[in-house]
């Protein structure tokens, strides 16, 4: 078990180190000092509301990454998180602004509506996948485009939009539907729904490791043929996992909407879905890995503003994010192979069997 833990830590650590070295080289080549750049970024955390922003972003990234990870377990690439969370946020904001309920109940209804809307947006790709074999990457990307168009349409002032200042928003959610945060004064406010992300990660970890559903999901991803022989209904799993992924994606916009904006606005943030895919890769679909991946991502995202102050282009942080994901994929594969070879060696020594692993691998 210890060896397993070591190997699951080894890959991401190697990847982050490799990515850092890569970025350092880029910085040196472009004539900047990597030490100064890193110092500026770390120093930035103490400035203003950056620390709180990092915490809040971490929670949002976690939700997006969990949504991606659910699909990844089955080798389903849900590229549609971007569209699903947008639709989820928009529908939830419209519904939340139209009803009045007691506080906690109001939040719950909004959250459930968001999840249902996100799942609904994943339904079409799921159905196309199991009935017509349409690859989910293609259908979800197209659903993203439709989601953007739909959102732009629904927020028009002749639909659900109203003019607030010089911004167009949906009807504001009444205070009973607003989730209070932790107010740290000048440092900012931590969203109350940060805890939603923590709960989601815990539930996700439990479902994956402890339930029949999680087992069937993992088995389908590891070996569709073995899963089928073991009685797992592949089509059902595809539909269920895409819908659950969409439902979690639907929640991605909730911390900001219920904790800060209290409406869907024209400035609604985009890009969380794609970040989530990268973070799920970085965290190897593991809840703790995803939490740390999200934290790292949020740090790079929020602290990169400081780079401009020391004369370094802040795009270096984006390079770093990309390099980390790429190297973690490579590093994980290398570590996995090393692990398997080591285990075969161990089993070979323990049992005295002389079977060539290459013969097995060749099959």
């Amino acid at each position: 078990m210890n060896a397993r833990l070591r190997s699951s830590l080894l890959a991401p650590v190697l990847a982050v180190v490799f990515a850092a070295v890569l970025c350092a080289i880029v910085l040196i080549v472009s004539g900047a000092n990597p030490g100064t750049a890193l110092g500026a970024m770390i120093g930035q955390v103490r400035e203003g509301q950056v620390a709180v922003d990092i915490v809040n972003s971490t929670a949002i990234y976690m939700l997006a990454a969990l949504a991606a990870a659910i699909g990844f377990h089955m080798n389903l690439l849900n590229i549609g998180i971007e569209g699903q969370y947008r639709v989820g946020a928009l529908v939830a904001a419209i519904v939340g602004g139209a009803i009045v309920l007691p506080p906690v109940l109001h939040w719950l209804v909004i959250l459930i509506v968001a999840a249902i809307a996100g799942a609904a947006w994943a339904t079409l790709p799921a159905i196309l996948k199991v009935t017509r074999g349409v690859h989910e990457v293609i259908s979800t990307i197209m659903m993203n485009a439709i989601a953007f168009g739909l959102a732009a349409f629904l927020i028009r002032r002749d639909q659900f939009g109203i003019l607030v200042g010089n911004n167009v928003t949906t009807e504001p959610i009444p205070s009973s539907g607003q989730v209070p945060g932790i107010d740290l004064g000048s440092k900012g406010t931590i969203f109350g729904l940060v805890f939603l992300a923590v709960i989601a990660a815990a539930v996700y970890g439990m479902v994956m490791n402890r339930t029949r559903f999680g087992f069937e999901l993992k088995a389908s991803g590891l070996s569709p043929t073995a899963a089928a022989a073991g009685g797992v209904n592949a089509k059902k799993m595809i539909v269920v996992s895409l819908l659950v992924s969409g439902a979690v994606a639907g929640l991605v916009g909730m911390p900001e909407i219920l904790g800060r904006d209290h409406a869907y606005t024209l400035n609604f943030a985009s890009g969380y879905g794609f970040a989530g895919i990268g973070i799920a890769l970085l965290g190897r679909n593991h809840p703790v890995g995803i939490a740390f991946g999200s934290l790292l991502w949020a740090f790079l995202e929020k602290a990169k503003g400081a780079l401009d102050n020391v004369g370094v282009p802040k795009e270096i942080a984006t390079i770093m994010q990309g390099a980390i994901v790429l190297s973690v994929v490579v590093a994980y594969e290398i570590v996995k192979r090393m692990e398997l070879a080591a285990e075969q060696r161990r089993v070979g020594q323990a049992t005295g069997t002389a079977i060539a692993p290459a013969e097995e691998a060749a099959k």
Partner: protein
Amino acid sequence: MTDTEVVTTSPAVTLSGITKRFPGVVANSDVHLTVRTGEVHALCGENGAGKSTLMKILYGMQPPDEGDIEVNGRQVHFKSPSDAIRAGIGMVHQHFMLADNLTVLENVVLGAEGLYGIGAKARGRVRGMARSVGLYLDPDTLVERLGVADRQRVEILKVLYRGAKIIILDEPTAVLVPQEVDELFNTLRTMRADGYTFLFISHKLDEVRAIADSITVIRRGTTVGTVDPKTVTTRQLAEMMVGSELPSPETRESTVTDTVVLQVEGLTLETGDGRRLLDRLDLQVRSGEVLGIAGVEGNGQTELVETIMGIRKAASGRVLLDGQNLTRAGTLARREAGIGYIPEDRTRHGLLLTEPLWANRILGYQTRRPTARGAFLDIAGARKDTRRIVEQFDVRTPGIDVAAASLSGGNQQKLVIGRELSGEPKLLIASHPTRGVDVGAQAAIWDHIRDARAAGLAVLLVSADLDELIGLSDSIKVMLRGKFVADADPATVTPEDLGSAMTGAGHVDESGLLVTGGDE
């Protein structure tokens, strides 16, 4: 009719001191092998003994860690198979590498266009050579129309065309029925007379004794010795291979009862375009009975098993287990109803290779005790029961937390069998249960199947190993092109009779029973 002229010629191939290490295991250690020109030299050994690794080294697919290779007296260092081909060595793999939608001629010339072009000259050469490998058909025939034996001849033709004089045949008879094996051997004898040298890899000892001029036995990665097939018995050979007492699949007294466990009626499976893969099949398996299904691979056995398991959806027909109609049930429901399933390819269908053994115990049992409680997994229960299987079925492993991939084939299979016999199944479907496992594990697997049968389990056994089929079964059905063409009584039938029936050449009496000892 083993040819006896022993010619003392210079060796075609000499391997000396070959050692090859893989992480943790030594696949070959200090192997010595001398193959004379113009002989059929057999290389015998159990699965996993290191035969394939040795041949991959000779064919340039893997470099040896130590040792020398000499071809026709000259030392060589192959970096890739193309070096080996240039030195006159060709290899016919066990699994054919042919493009179905190309003709024989195109398949042969493909990748060797530089030798004789692709025009009339190439056609002439292919025509001339086709006869010497016993291929008497138009080179413009599409390969998809060819039977297994002819496909193999095309494979041999391919290596001849590339100028091979030394030909490695990797388990060439594994896919052939006995009659086709005889034809292949006749071809090999003719070609040997023409000066070709063969390295014949096999673990079928009777065949090896029938064809080989000398036999080298390999065990646990090293050569045990080279013997003359005329002076050695099959039993001695087998003991050289195994190094211990030999198992036999014989089942003693009958335990068949009257209780029908599995009833299949008119089962039909069709492809998308309406071709019948299974054609109105009827069968019954009783409690305590082993029903064997014989057939050349690809005649519907895989489809039959997968349709009974609910992995494929039948077009019509019924499947009943203990009177319970399972025709519309999914795979999981069928498993829960009491079917254990040993799939033909354990690595693809039986195991999650990267998962630990205890997680593999859950597969197929994710809804039942002791591995699950309701929607939750019972991991402690799964671990405990995995330990029981490891102990009871002698799975050689340092623990239950290792990945399934790190076990040897035989131990993986024992784990699968242990799992599929848990939960008191009523029916066990076993597809090639001893394929690719060593002799020791094979004997253990036969014992487990026999014990389960004695305890009242119904067993549907599909196997390509006719000795296993005859030895274990209480009755046998022969399958050809998706139909049952004959029944056979294992007490009287010989592998040759079965082989005839499998190719459609057998005779059946009016009750459908195969006439044994018939005219050949």
